[in-house]
Each structure stands twice: as C-alpha cells, then as structure tokens.
C-alpha cells in the first residue's frame, strides 16, 4: 500500500456503515448485507442544517407555550418548561428539577450549537482541533436521546394523574413542539458525517506534498 493512501476513500474503497465491510467504490450495494454504499453520507451538511433549523423553529413554541396543565378542584394552572423547572426547585424537588433542566434546556441547546459549529467548521474549512470536534460530536450523539426524559415525565404524569375533579393533568401544545425538537436534533446528529472533519486534513497534506 503506498504511504500516501491513508483512508478507505483514497484507496477507492467504501465502508458499509451497516456491517463495516469494505467494498470497491464502484459497487452500488454492499456485497455482504446489501446496504446502499456511499464513501460519505450524501449531502450530510445540508441535511444536518435542515434538521437543525427545524429544531430551532420548534424550540421557540416549546418554550413559550405550556407543556401541561394541572387542574385541581376546578382551578387550572399552566406550566411552561422554564416555569416548571423553577417551580420544582422552589418546592425543593431538586432532583427532578435538575434532571428536567438538563433534558429540556442544556442538552437541546448544547446539541444545536455543537452541530451548527461542526457544520460551520466544515464550511470554513477549519483544519485544527479535530480531536476536540470528535469529542463534541460523540457527546451529542450519545446524549441526544436523553432529552426525551422531558416528554416521558409528561407522559407519566398525564397517564397517572387522572383523578376526576381532584387532580387532572393534561398535555399542552409545547410538549408536542419539544418532542419534535428531540426527534429533529437526533436526526441531525445522525445525518452528520464525522469523516468530513478528517477529510480536511487530507486535502491539506496533499497540498503540502505537491509543494515539496
């Protein structure tokens, strides 16, 4: 193997993302599992950005409208995400307050910012800090699903707290919007192809080689 070839793509091979088998680039389907082959995910950056923009749009109503309404003895109270976190904290329910704070504020915002930065760094052809960008990417990939905690807490409250006139909890429009945010940010992370980060270096090295 010539030393200039470092990646599968340079060796004219495509890795099957579903079974990890290397196939020649000219094959359209994986010889082992039948998956459609691409050297890089198609339109990865555009797809990631499209999902992220959808997530940002839905995150606004998710914060403005109530996630649920609590009716006790004819009185109805509405809770937004932030309002709920503050109220739970004031009621000394610290554990659930912190869990919801992370699931519904820290994780989604962090995820959107990180993925936007990763897409931007590819557009700007930034070559440094690859290791750090990979760590950020892996964190978003791993933490993404934990945002669903918020939706699940509402689901549990809604299905358990149906006590006629005494206590009744109903879902609000914001929890639907928030669920869309969770799904779209997960799809955004899946659409992103981390190999593009490393491709930047290859072009730089090739460039350096030609100059020598």
């Amino acid at each position, binding site marked *: 193997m010539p030393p200039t*070839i470092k990646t599968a793509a340079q060796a004219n091979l495509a890795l099957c993302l579903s079974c990890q088998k290397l196939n020649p680039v000219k094959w359209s389907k994986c010889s082992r599992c039948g998956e459609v082959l691409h050297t890089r995910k198609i339109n990865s950056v555009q797809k990631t950005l499209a999902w992220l923009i959808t997530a940002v749009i839905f995150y606004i109503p998710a914060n403005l409208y109530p996630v649920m309404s609590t009716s006790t003895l004819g009185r109805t109270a509405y809770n937004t995400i932030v309002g709920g976190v503050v109220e739970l904290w004031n009621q000394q329910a610290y554990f659930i307050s912190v869990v919801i704070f992370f699931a519904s504020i820290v994780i989604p915002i962090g995820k959107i910012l990180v993925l936007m930065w990763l897409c931007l760094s590819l557009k700007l052809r930034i070559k440094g800090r690859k290791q750090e960008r990979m760590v950020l990417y892996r964190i978003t990939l791993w933490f993404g699903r934990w945002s*669903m905690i918020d*939706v699940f807490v509402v689901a549990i*409250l809604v299905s358990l707290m*149906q006590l006629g006139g005494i*206590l009744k909890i109903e879902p609000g429009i914001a929890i639907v919007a928030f669920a869309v945010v969770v799904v779209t940010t997960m799809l955004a992370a899946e659409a992103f192809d981390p190999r593009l980060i*490393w491709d930047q270096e290859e072009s730089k090295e090739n460039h350096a080689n030609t100059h020598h």
Partner: protein
Amino acid sequence: MIEHLSACEQCDLLLEAPILNHSESAHCPRCGHIICQRPKYSLQFTLSFSIACIILFFVANFFPMLSVEKAGLYNEMSLYQAAWQFLELGEPFLFFLIFFVLLLCPSALLLALVYMLLPMIFMRRVMPYTSAIGRWVFYIKHWSMIDVYLIAALASLTKLTSVANIDLGIGLWAYIVFTVCLASALANLDKIRFWRYLDKIKCHQLLRQQLKQI
C-alpha cells in the same frame, strides 16, 4: 487483500481488521473511535437476555407500574398506557412517538434478535431475510429508549410521592429488570462480531449443502 482490511467508521482511516481476545477492544489510532469490541460473553449471552426481556416486557405491560390514590380516587398505569393516554387525549403525534420508542422499537429489536440468533446458534442455520433484518437492527438500536424512560419514571417518582399516595407495582420491578437485561443484551452485540459470525454460519450452511450433494 480487501478481506484483511477495515476502516474506521468515524474518520475513514484504513486499518488492518482487528482480531481480538475476550474483553478486548480496538480503538482507532487517529480519532479514538472504538472500532470493535469483544465482550467477555458470546452472542449466546445476547440471545438468553433477549428471551428474558420478552417475558419481562409482557409483565411490564400487563401489570400496573405505578398506582395513585388521593381522597378515595384511584388510578393505575402500566407501560403501554404512557403512550395510550395520549391517543385518548387527542395527541396522535405524541402517541406515535412514545409507542415507537417504548413499545415498537424494543419489541421489534428483541423479536428480530431471537429470530436471527436462535437458529444461528443452535441449528447453524441462517433464516431468510437475516441480512436485511440485521442491517435494520443496528439502525433502530438507539431509538429504543427503555433506559431513558426508567430515569424519567424514577425522577417523577421523587416528586409525585409528595403530591399523592403512590404505590409501586409489579410492573415497575419487572420494568427495572427489563432495562438491565436489555442493556446487557445490547452491550454484547457488537456490529463487526455479529456480521463475522453470520459469515461463519453461512459458510457452515454452504458446506453442509455441498456434503449432502456428494
């Protein structure tokens, strides 16, 4: 030659395909991604945990997980009701989402694993559509949110107990064991190992057919 090579999923670095001993894992020298893991136990471990999971899944769905009692009024919920209640309250999107991540994904995943692994391990046979199902199992793996729901249930419990009388049902205990079993089953399921094992069984099957013809 191509058979001895592999590439990193996250940075596309060309590598020698790793051959591992028990409890070893191979990391990519360039980006640090875990290329392949060989856990202590074999795929039989995944199969036995999957079967245990299917039984526990039924218990969690048919027995109440939590029940609430306040001022003489009583209500209880089991696993599927977390999704079902949304349909009754006219939220089809939330119903579908929760149904998908809590009920459809995990049960499809478990049935698929048993369908593929049972004949492979005990009869050295590959069932029809195994490649297609196998491909799809690794895609939906992280859309099953069993562990996330457990944390959500425990977090809400800390609050609910101060509002009303909450009782923990058999369903909840079954669900906790279910979460642990599912995590163990999936932890032992490495992508590369699964597909290599499938190749091996396919070879066995082919050899057997050729022997029969002689």
